[in-house]
């Protein structure tokens, strides 16, 4: 995209006087600004989304008064955090204290460069996209340890040490699961990973159920790898049930205890940037990124009717609670189905791969992460290590071998 952007800038006569390197630099700046704006706006929306989702899960209303239905709530929070006094504790290590949060934010924002939002819309088409993301996102723990150590507070020291142990021990199973995916595709480039998941095939290449050719249906081992990756990634971004570094009930506020005002907002921003990154990665690697689940527009029409029927039956029979709140999702699905049947153009657009499906999948994964947070209690430090070393690591190794054997069995590769 940067290439196309640079050429687009050079095409203007008035700007053609600039050297190609300046145009190139300008377009680089524009793209990175775009990414940062996306991450910031995304964090604002997600904070509001999380407070509303947690409220509905807890039988209450969530922010309602600030703006219509509380929509401006996070804007008000951000503005208020701007006005807060910037406290740096006297006995804190000033340099580390200041750059700690920035390192975390930069590490989590920079990884978005390699995320392909749709087949044409991506910042940098790197051929080592996955490797780049994994290596950059491991710097986050450096920032956490820096922030925790610098604030000279026993609670944040505990938070920092716990998060260091946790993230390092979950890097390994996550890395091995990613190798399993790369083994199937043969390339680290996220764009080619998505392109390899196009079209429809049968489940696990073996049971003749027509399903989109996503990696989650590629083989039972990759199916397991999807969940192993989700668990490992939840641990890596310190979200419940693995949120012991900033557990409110034990460590007051974990490594964020001594941070106030804007500095603390950076932590909040990077937490949600990481969550979005993980959601995108899960949808790219296992749910076929911007691939559409329906091969053609007829598929879209039939697919959406099935979704509406399932939603209607679920609301009427299973939950047996037909009130104003539970009608909304069924109504939405109904409208889309009618539109798909009436306007073939709309159905075609639905069936075609594009940014719509990318954000739908990422959104559902984010909703899942939030669902985890508001239902599960918190694991203890040693149980967390046990889960990582004794459960997920062997599982990811088995997945790696299993994928290779499966591909040999189903004839994808010949020895």
């Amino acid at each position, binding site marked *: 995209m940067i290439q196309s952007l640079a050429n687009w800038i050079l095409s203007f006569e008035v700007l053609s006087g600039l050297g190609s390197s300046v145009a190139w630099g300008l377009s680089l700046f524009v793209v990175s600004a775009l990414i940062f704006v996306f991450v910031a706006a995304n964090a604002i929306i997600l904070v509001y989304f999380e407070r509303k989702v947690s409220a509905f899960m807890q039988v209450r209303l*969530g*922010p309602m008064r600030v703006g219509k239905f509380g929509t401006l709530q996070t804007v008000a929070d951000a503005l208020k955090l701007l006005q*807060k006094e910037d*406290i740096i504790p006297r006995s804190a290590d000033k340099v580390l204290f200041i750059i700690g949060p920035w390192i975390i934010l930069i590490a989590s924002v920079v990884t978005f460069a390699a995320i392909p939002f749709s087949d044409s819309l991506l910042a940098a088409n790197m051929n080592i996209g996955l490797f780049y993301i994994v290596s950059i996102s491991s710097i986050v723990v450096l920032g956490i340890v820096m922030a925790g150590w610098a604030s000279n507070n026993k609670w944040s020291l505990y938070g920092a040490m716990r998060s260091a142990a946790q993230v390092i021990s979950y890097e390994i199973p996550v890395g091995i699961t990613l190798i399993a995916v790369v083994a199937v595709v043969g390339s680290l480039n996220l764009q080619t990973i998505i392109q390899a998941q196009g079209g429809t095939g049968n489940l696990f290449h073996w049971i003749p159920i027509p399903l989109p050719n996503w990696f989650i249906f590629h083989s039972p081992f990759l199916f397991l790898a999807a969940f192993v990756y989700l668990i490992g990634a939840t641990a890596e971004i310190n979200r419940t049930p693995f949120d012991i570094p900033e557990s409110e009930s034990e460590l007051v506020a974990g490594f964020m205890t001594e*941070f106030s005002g804007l500095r603390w907002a950076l932590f909040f921003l990077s937490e949600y940037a990481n969550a979005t990154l993980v959601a995108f990665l899960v949808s790219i690697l296992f749910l076929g990124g911007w691939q559409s689940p329906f091969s053609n527009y007829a598929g879209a029409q039939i697919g959406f009717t099935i979704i509406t029927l399932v939603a209607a039956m679920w609301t009427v029979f299973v939950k047996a609670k037909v009130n104003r709140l539970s009608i909304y999702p069924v109504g939405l699905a109904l409208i889309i189905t009618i539109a798909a049947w009436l306007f073939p153009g709309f159905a075609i657009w639905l069936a075609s791969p594009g940014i719509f499906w990318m954000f739908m999948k990422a959104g559902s994964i984010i909703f899942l992460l939030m669902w985890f947070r508001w239902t599960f209690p918190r694991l203890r430090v040693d149980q967390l290590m046990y889960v990582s070393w004794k459960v997920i690591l062997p599982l990811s190794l088995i997945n790696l071998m299993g994928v290779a054997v499966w591909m040999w069995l189903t004839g994808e590769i010949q020895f």
Partner: protein
Amino acid sequence: MGALNHKFNENILITSLDKLLNWSRSGSEWYFQFGLACCAIEMMSAAAARHDLERFGAMPRSSPRQADVMIVAGTVTLKMATRVKRLYEQMAEPKYVISMGSCANSGGPYWQHGYHVLKGVDQIVPVDIYIPGCPPRPEALIEGLLHLQKKMREEHILAKKED
């Protein structure tokens, strides 16, 4: 905002900017999770399902650095008074104090024979809003928060002080 405080004279731009800042501050009062006694239980039920404090943007924060409003909910004994003062000083600057319950207002039922009770938290900490009641109902706490919001809206952060 320390450097910009009260430096500009009153004009359209500044007052509207003041209004925006006041709106944002009053819209997200993060209260300091700090319960002492019976009033803390009423504060918890105010934060729970029926009277949801989150509707007004009030989120409980357990660290003094990230809280704006300190709700002193319960009896401040002399042994606890030094801690309350230190916690107040640890909070970041635009900070407010709500004294919830007659124990925090004036010592309450323990006024006459309470040798170990501090007669009113305003002896150690500047209080913005007093909420009467023993314990005040969650609705009273919400009314206190709304009064604090009204008080925040009238503040002038950027405009010069008219002294």
